[in-house]
């Protein structure tokens, strides 16, 4: 049933785009209003509650003492999970993470990991003990493009994170925590292609109408991740345009960190 409504929205979205318009009158490379509230969760070591339009995502960063991977015994462990909460949309079902939730977690994780902004070696404690960084992404309200909201929230939560000291076998949260050192900011920019038009920050109706989607991770002046989704194909010049816009938008997005 949802699919049928999507078809109506799809023809409406296409009709508007052919007149050079989006339903909310935004420019094709404009974001909706962005808000970011750092430190929204006090039980986390770092957190942020981000809104892009009506889409809302919470990111939490929490540290734990974990055993390192055997092939990287002197490096910390980064672990990212995402939940598409059933409260966020009538189409999200309760239960174990869907493939979309797993994709979201992996795409956000990949940008942060590839950008090498966290000094993983600096998270070594002692043999067999390293810091684990858990990033949890909670999509609370879904009106399209949870990817960029989650990426911004994750980065803002990392910027907000304080590392608890390791003392006598446990982590101590007593005010002696130190800010997590970061060597840059990895942020993601999501585009959709609808009938030859390229749009940044798709709304839900636009996502449903999309032939293809591309998420581009940027760190400084470099690309740090990419993820194409959707059945449609992209042309080389379209990808180039999307990369250019992402690089342009990067500094603007950083202001929300």
């Amino acid at each position: 049933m949802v699919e049928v409504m999507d078809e109506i929205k799809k023809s409406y979205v296409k009709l508007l785009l052919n007149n050079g318009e989006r339903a909310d009158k935004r420019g094709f490379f404009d974001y909706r209003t962005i808000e970011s509230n750092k430190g929204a969760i006090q039980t986390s070591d770092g957190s942020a509650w981000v809104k892009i339009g009506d889409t809302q995502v919470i990111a939490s960063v929490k540290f734990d003492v974990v055993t390192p991977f055997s092939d990287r015994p002197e490096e910390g462990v980064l672990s990212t999970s995402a939940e598409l909460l059933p409260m966020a949309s009538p189409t999200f079902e309760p239960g174990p993470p869907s493939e979309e939730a797993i994709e979201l977690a992996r795409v956000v994780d990949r940008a942060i990991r590839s950008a090498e902004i966290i000094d993983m070696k600096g998270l070594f404690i002692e043999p067999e003990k390293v810091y684990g960084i858990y990033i949890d992404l909670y999509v609370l309200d879904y009106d399209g493009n949870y990817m960029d909201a989650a990426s911004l929230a994750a980065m803002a939560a990392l910027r907000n994170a304080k590392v608890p000291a390791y003392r006598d076998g446990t982590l101590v949260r007593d005010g002696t925590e130190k800010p997590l050192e970061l060597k840059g900011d990895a942020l993601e920019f999501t585009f959709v292609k609808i009938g030859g038009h390229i749009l940044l920050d798709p709304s839900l109706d636009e996502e449903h109408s999309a032939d293809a989607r591309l998420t581009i991770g940027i760190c400084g002046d470099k690309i740090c991740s990419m993820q194409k989704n959707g059945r449609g194909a992209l042309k080389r010049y379209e990808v180039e345009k999307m990369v250019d816009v992402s690089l342009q938008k990067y500094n603007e997005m950083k202001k929300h960190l």
Partner: protein
Amino acid sequence: MRRIVFPGELLSDKRITSRGIYVENGKSYAALIGFYDDEKEVFIPLEGAYEPNVGDLLIGIVSDVKPNGYVIEVGLPSDTFMSARDFREPLGMGEIIVAKVKSVSETRSISLADPAVLKGGNIIKISSVKIPRVIGKKGSMLSQIKDATKSKIIVGKNGWIWIKGGNEYLATKAILKIEKEAHTSGLTDKIGEFLKNNENGDEHVGQ
């Protein structure tokens, strides 16, 4: 004087029959958030799902095509069915119709009659309890939106509104504004002003 009331609030020591009111031991209490007028004994809900009544005009979409007719979705928990005989021409998936509620069963399933097919256009969904405000007194609100936007608009009691042509963006914005501010007074004037200020304006949103 009308006052805003909340579920469980005592409205009257008498028995009042109305949507959003329940009676216990002869007294009437609110079951929904809404406005209650003590003198007129009228309750207007501010929130609530669509409750079908015979004669209601609804907007629906064809969500499945069967050998002998169509499954029509109208936003109720269960879909309804219309025979192919009710239509002059065969319908396809996703076609938009407007039809009247012919009957409502004990378990709240409905049957529809007198359908007309609406070609093209867009559907917006608002809370059904706000529909009376979108229509306005004697249709005044709706006609001022139609006049200002030159859009074709058909309002379904189920909260689904079909819009086609003209300044669809402005018509949609105006209707969503009515939904948001349905509980405020002087709404017809406010919307009139809103339509006037935005008629030609391309207000820029986003960043």
